[in-house]
């Protein structure tokens, strides 16, 4: 692979992710609207929102770190996008792997946490504490799932993971080989995306949207971009692990939209848990499922 090719991929991969991510945001709002028997926003509304936020006149910053936090949150996702393979583009996925990705995905949130920390708003801090707790909770089943998949396919390399599943057809997809792990993974996904019933750290009515409390203008816009990346990444990762990755862009997009649509639809049917209840729930069923899946995987 030539250097130019690689450079093009490095530019293209985040860009695609951004676009698809925005589409997913749109889907989220559409689903919500349909469930509440509304029409929902038009096609380009998410993009307009982002542009609007970035160009607002009132931009309140609490200091350099506040700004750096947003930069890290967005920037880390840009980096992550180059590490997950999509049809036709592997980027530098060979240089990382499943475990690196699992840890790298904590970086944007922590960057955001730094920014929120400097806002010096107690509501933000409370939100952070809850977000960290949630992370501790859902990462345990999620890492079990990662282990199970890596063991199942005897690799942590995402490119190889895709290659193995595509070579063997649907029968070798993770979801077929080990449905238990796939279900546990879905649970983890739900929590990772911070959607109901796990949106404890946003909790608008309780702690005034927690981490977002001091965010406005391009800061909130940054968060918006970050969320679009987050949806996309989660979808791609799950697809790569369980659904055989993308043979071509058409099937690939279908898969990742379906994957993201599930938690989003579920989200609207649930109220919010309390922190301790969420921890208990996540440590119970997904962990049990993942462990059972591991037993299957090891045999």
């Amino acid at each position, binding site marked *: 692979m030539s250097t130019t090719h690689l450079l093009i991929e*490095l530019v293209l991969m985040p860009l695609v992710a951004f676009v698809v991510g925005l589409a997913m945001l749109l889907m989220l709002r559409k689903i919500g609207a349909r469930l509440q028997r509304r029409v929902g926003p038009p096609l380009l509304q998410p993009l307009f929102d982002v542009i609007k936020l*970035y*160009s*607002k*006149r*009132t931009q*309140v*910053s*609490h*200091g350099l*770190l506040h700004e750096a936090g*947003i*930069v890290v949150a*967005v*920037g*880390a*996702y*840009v980096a992550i996008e*180059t590490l997950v393979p999509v049809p036709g583009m592997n980027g530098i996925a*060979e*240089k*990382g*792997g499943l475990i*690196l990705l699992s*840890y790298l995905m*904590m*970086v944007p949130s*922590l960057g955001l*946490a*730094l920014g929120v*920390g*400097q806002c*010096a708003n*107690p*509501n933000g*801090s*409370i939100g*952070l*504490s809850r977000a*960290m*707790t949630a*992370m*501790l909770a859902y990462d*345990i089943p999620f*890492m*079990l799932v990662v*282990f199970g998949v890596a*063991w199942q396919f005897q690799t*942590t*390399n995402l490119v190889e993971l895709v290659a193995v599943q595509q070579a063997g057809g649907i029968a070798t997809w993770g979801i077929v080989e080990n449905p238990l792990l796939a279900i546990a993974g879905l649970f983890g996904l739900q929590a990772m995306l911070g959607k109901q019933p796990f949106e404890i750290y946003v909790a608008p009515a309780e702690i005034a949207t927690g981490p977002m*409390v001091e965010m406005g*203008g*391009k*800061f909130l816009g*940054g968060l918006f971009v970050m969320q679009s990346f987050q949806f996309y990444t989660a979808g791609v990762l799950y697809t790569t692990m369980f659904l055989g990755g993308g043979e071509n862009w058409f099937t690939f997009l279908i898969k990742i939209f379906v994957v993201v649509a599930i938690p989003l639809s579920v989200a609207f049917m649930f109220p919010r848990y*309390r*922190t*301790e209840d969420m*921890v208990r729930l996540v440590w119970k069923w997904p962990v049990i499922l993942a462990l059972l899946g*591991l037993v299957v995987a090891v045999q």
Partner: protein
Amino acid sequence: MSVLDQLLVFAFMTGAVASFIGDRRFAGTLLAILYFGQFLLLVKLAPLGYGAQPVVSAWQPALFGEVLVWRMDALGWYFALITVVAGWLVTWYASGEWGQGYRERGGNLGLMHTAVAANVVAMLLLLSSGNLLSLFVGWELVSWAGFLLMVMNGRESGGVSGPAGLRYITYATLGAMALLAALAIAHHASGSFEYIDLIDAVDQMTGPTRVSLVIAFALAFTIKMGLLPFHLWQAPAYAYSPGPGGAFLGAISSRVGLWGLAMVFGSLIGIGRIAGIELIPGWFDLRDVFMWVAALTIVLPTFTALRQNDARLLLAWHGIGQGGYMLLGLAAGDALGTGGGLMHVLNHASYQAPLFLAVFAVMHRTGTSDLNRLGGLVARMPLTFLVMLIGIIGLAGLPPMNGFVSKYLVYISLLRQGEPLLFILAVIGTLGTVLSVFKLLHNTFLGQLRVEHMEVREAPWSMLIPMLLMASVVVVTGTAPGLVLDWVASAQAALGLPVLDHTLGGAAGLDMLWVSGVLVYGFAVGTLLFLSGNKSRRVHQFDNYAGGHFLTAENQYQYSDQFYAGLMHHIGGWYRASFTWAESVVIASVDAMSAAANGFFRRTQAVFLLLLATLGSVAWLLWGVGS
């Protein structure tokens, strides 16, 4: 005189200088220069780190028919490098304003410099020990030099350091006695104290002898390393040492335990033989015991750290937990695991020392390390914040810092060996660390700046430069772990372990050069995106609204106490202090036995005892002869 001799003599000289003029104003600077000299001598020995033959000391005293040998190999060099650099930078840190402040607070700066220098000398002697006897001598010197550093801080710590040091030395003596027992067993089996003879003799040993040898060694080294269940001494002992001393101890001192275990697992006995000792045949062997101890050492102390409200204690508890990763990797036994475990030693030193120093810089400026009395300092001490930020990312083991690389190798090793439970325990430890260090950072530097800290200044350069140097090590070796992995591979070769196949960017499918590169790229994109927005306006921290009113200087609200209340609501009940309880039971039983012994001397009818003893021994002898 070999370079090793020069190094040892130079280190002794540094100690002598410290003890004579350690309390002068210029002493810190002079000593820092001397440490740098030691560092240069180590650089002269650098071929060791790239596969050269060990360097032997010319001085080999013979005592009671036994010879003391000093010989430095790749493993020793690797640890010695960390030691000397840590000693150098912490002394530099203490050379300026910090030292002056310490003296003004009534501390004995000269003694502290001397103690640090003594620790460095002792460590060098231990790390270059060429047989079991010199190992024991070095071992004891390290223990007692550490003790000196721990107990000398009585005034600063409000008298807490004394009992903490006493607890340490009691544990350390227990470890030393276990080591002595191991020495005796080895001597019995091989007829000498030489490593080579022991290695030869291991195969001929009977099963019980081998098991007891492994246990004796393991006991000695695990106690020093603060592994479960012998970890209780470590946190208070390190936390209440004088700042730079505590940083030194936390960075490297307890890792000599790992050094010893590496020798046992590598050359002396061999991990294969240890795995061959099956406790439940087919299911559970002695190596598994080590791995589970390591995994529990990762989890339990980390979650103890999570509950600390004193920054020093928090860091010290994490130090214990990180030791678990090292042992876990080492006990995994393959190239990846041992490589990760050994690399983690340097990584841990490189972030633990600046973290301690950053905490002490904050203490220097604010007078407290109580996490509930700080906050918002990032606006006043941005560079110290930067050091702590880099440090905690390394400690938490997140990319792109070096802590991630070593843990990654351990994870992959566990993955390849199919150890999901150990893997998940290691992950839980990392997650707990992330939570805990975020609390540390948040409660110190983020949130509301307290009114009494409004005028706080940034730490002086004499403290910042050493911290920044250490922090830069975290970044550089995180980006190019191959620098360290070269040394680690040489150490593995010296130990007879499988050698890690690596590149400059990492190993096992990880290339940190690329990962760091795309992160920089990503941040650049993020910055551009950020700058593309409308210009922002900075506001004061009180330009803020929460809990129904504006925050003002009179009416501050910093969320810090019980930071993870929700989590604690769930796991709070799991903190049972079982080890503290077990320790107190041991102490109570010694007390009871002691009371009984005292009673014997106080109350008994002396003559009656004499008579009883006479009759008893006569009868015993008669019976003994009769049978």
